[in-house]
């Protein structure tokens, strides 16, 4: 059974119609001992099918060590949203419910390689001189 309803599909397809550049969704999964891996993979397949600008790569967290190291993924299910480059955006867990909106927004942001942040925010961010790792803890509802 599909995770996205017909109505969801229409909405998402319309949102993704304006994508600028290509986006790659990099999915890390495994078959056993991962409650939402299968559903995450299915969701990403459904989303990728709604835009010819989106490509999906699926890797096994246990076996594909090169990609796990390359994308620095440490738990699953994991989804890396990549545009012209890897901007450092990862979703851990299935990006459904409230997080689905953030997921679509991430796709659109990396596709255009920019955001709507204010000039003041951009100037403040330019003051950062060392790596910053943000972990946002959230729930689907």
């Amino acid at each position: 059974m599909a995770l996205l309803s017909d109505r969801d599909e229409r909405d998402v397809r319309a949102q993704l119609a304006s994508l600028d550049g290509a986006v790659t969704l990099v999915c890390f999964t495994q078959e056993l001992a991962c409650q939402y891996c299968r559903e995450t993979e299915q969701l990403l397949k459904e989303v990728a099918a709604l835009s010819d600008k989106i490509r999906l790569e699926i890797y096994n967290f246990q076996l594909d060590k090169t990609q796990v190291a390359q994308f620095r993924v440490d738990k699953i299910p994991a989804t890396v949203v990549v545009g012209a480059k890897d901007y450092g955006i990862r979703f851990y867990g299935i990006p459904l419910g409230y997080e689905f909106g953030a997921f679509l927004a991430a796709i659109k942001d990396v596709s255009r390689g920019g955001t709507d942040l204010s000039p003041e925010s951009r100037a403040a961010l330019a003051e950062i001189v060392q790596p910053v790792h943000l972990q946002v803890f959230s729930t689907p509802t």
Partner: protein
Amino acid sequence: MRLAQQLAVESDLITADLVEVTEFPHLAQRYSVRAVPRTVVNETASIEGALPESEFVRAVVAAAHKS
């Protein structure tokens, strides 16, 4: 999450993880997540709730300078 990922797009030094707490309860416990959203910055600071853009950016920059 929206703001965190926007910051990641704008700065090559920022990475943003969205962690679904019900799937990773050990992390919720480790980072004392009692309400969401909670944003942990470099393991050393945290931001509670959803803040307006200017406040969130200020909090992240301040935490980055401290760590």
